[in-house]
């Protein structure tokens, strides 16, 4: 059922493209390699990270966790009610019933009290030590990949050519938002404005912030960079930022996948695997200068 629907969408998306299109070499081997290393790393870091979070499914603001006072901004937990145990999620003091997913979940009859459900964690059972092993291994991969990508992209011009924002990008932004909302895509060599913002935001804001807040939680790194936690508002604030950036990255991932499915998954996947991308034919009804963007 699922595969049928998927393949229908794929077939439709890719046959919809007219015949007079051209294949261009769009993604360098560095972009492709680092893209997939990030994909693998982020998958394992997310799922091991949710397991680590489950050891203390609360987030606080400040230098420490309030036990004798309240600085909790987010909490997942379980409680006994008249109708049996229920899972809840509390955001800034507002409580939501999240039984089955957050707080109280598991196979029918074998539910347990856990923050994120077992299908969302590595390992699936509670194991903080192993999750830390997985998390820190991929932290090295992720960070190394980011540095390699940055150096390669500076050298091969990817940064300057494809990601650097230009004045034109700003002018095109309103139209770009409308196009995306209508799932109307232009297949060109260049990234559109929202793509630049999304990729640039992930690579230059979210991932660095993730690495920085991760390091800020390390007691040993605190002795090397004692100002880091003060800058971030304290170790527990750093942990809360780390979690929030995770949510933003998950949001990026979902939109990323949706956009790929909508824009033609075979063409998009080919370009990030082989580098080759099928572009739209030159438009006849627009001024050439505008269509080249």
């Amino acid at each position: 059922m699922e595969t049928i629907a998927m393949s229908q969408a794929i077939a439709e998306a890719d046959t919809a493209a007219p015949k007079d299109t051209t294949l261009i070499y769009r993604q360098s081997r560095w972009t492709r390699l680092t893209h997939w290393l990030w994909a693998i790393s982020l998958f394992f870091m997310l799922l091991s990270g949710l397991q680590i979070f489950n050891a203390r499914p609360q987030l606080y603001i400040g230098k420490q966790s309030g036990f004798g006072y309240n600085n909790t901004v987010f909490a997942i937990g379980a409680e006994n009610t008249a109708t049996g145990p229920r899972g809840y999620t509390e955001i800034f003091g507002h409580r939501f019933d999240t039984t089955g997913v957050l707080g109280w979940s598991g196979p029918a009859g074998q539910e347990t009290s856990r923050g994120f459900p077992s299908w969302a964690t590595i390992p699936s059972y509670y194991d903080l030590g192993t999750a830390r092993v997985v998390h820190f291994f991929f932290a090295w991969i992720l960070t190394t990949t980011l540095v390699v990508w940055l150096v390669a992209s500076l050298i091969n011009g990817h940064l300057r050519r494809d990601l650097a924002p230009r004045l034109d990008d700003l002018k095109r932004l309103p139209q770009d938002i409308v196009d995306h909302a209508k799932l109307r895509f232009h297949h060109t060599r260049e990234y559109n404005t929202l793509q630049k913002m999304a990729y640039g935001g992930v690579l230059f804001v979210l991932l660095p912030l993730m690495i920085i807040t991760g390091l800020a939680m390390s007691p040993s790194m605190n002795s090397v960079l004692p100002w880091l936690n003060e800058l971030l508002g304290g170790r527990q604030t750093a942990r809360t930022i780390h979690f929030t950036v995770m949510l933003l990255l998950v949001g990026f991932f979902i939109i990323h996948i949706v956009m790929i499915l909508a824009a033609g998954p075979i063409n998009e996947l080919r370009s990030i695997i082989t580098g080759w991308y099928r572009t739209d034919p030159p438009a006849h009804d627009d001024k050439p200068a505008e269509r080249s963007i």
Partner: protein
Amino acid sequence: MAKFQISRRKFLTSASLGVSGIMLSGCDAFDSQLGMGDGLRSFLENANGLTYRAQRLLAGRDALAPEFSEADIRQPQRPNGVTAPDDDTYKGLLANNFADWRLEVTGLVEKPLSLSREQLQNMPSRTQITRHDCVEGWSCIAKWTGTPLSLVLDQAVVKPEARYVMFHCLDTIDRSLSGEIKYYGTIDLIDARHPQTILAYGVNGKPLPVENGAPLRVRVERQLGYKMPKYLYKIELVDSFANVGGGRGGYWEDNGYDWYGGI
């Protein structure tokens, strides 16, 4: 103008099915490879050694953990792990306020020591307001007073072949087929000689209470809480911990935590 469009309904259906397919793939797929000693886990554990070396390189011997002000002490130190040892030996020592308790310093030392609480408290002390970071993720700031471990090591004269300090504790943390497992742990000599590594007998201006490890606990401020054993009674200088417990250097390490708790 060339563009393609698919029906919105078809698109949304396939997109949501695709995403849920990924989510439902399940994360027990890796479970069988992630147990202690399994190939994948052992491979991934190599990163812990890299982290240890990188952080040692960056932090050096003496970089200090951040210290805080009195105003940052906003609550009692949160206890964790064993908070009331049920061991007869411990309860006996507690009954007369640890008058019979001694800290043994043994192993690879020239002069083994047996120190009473008074002897330790008569040595020069250090007081520091530091943040205790639990591996679980929480933090708590408290003021710790104790004897620098380096002074005790100097007094015992550590032999050159010693590589680790092993802490032996009075509390039973677990039971196995071969009997009770007492808490134990190890740190390297760099952390053992770190200026903030103290044998703490006081917290927040008062004698160390039972839940925080009375009569003596370790503070290793550049590592996580599980590296700071409570209910201490023996310090042993060793050149290896391979033959103790599970061979990984501590109770929690034997259960899967990293030996190096600096991250």
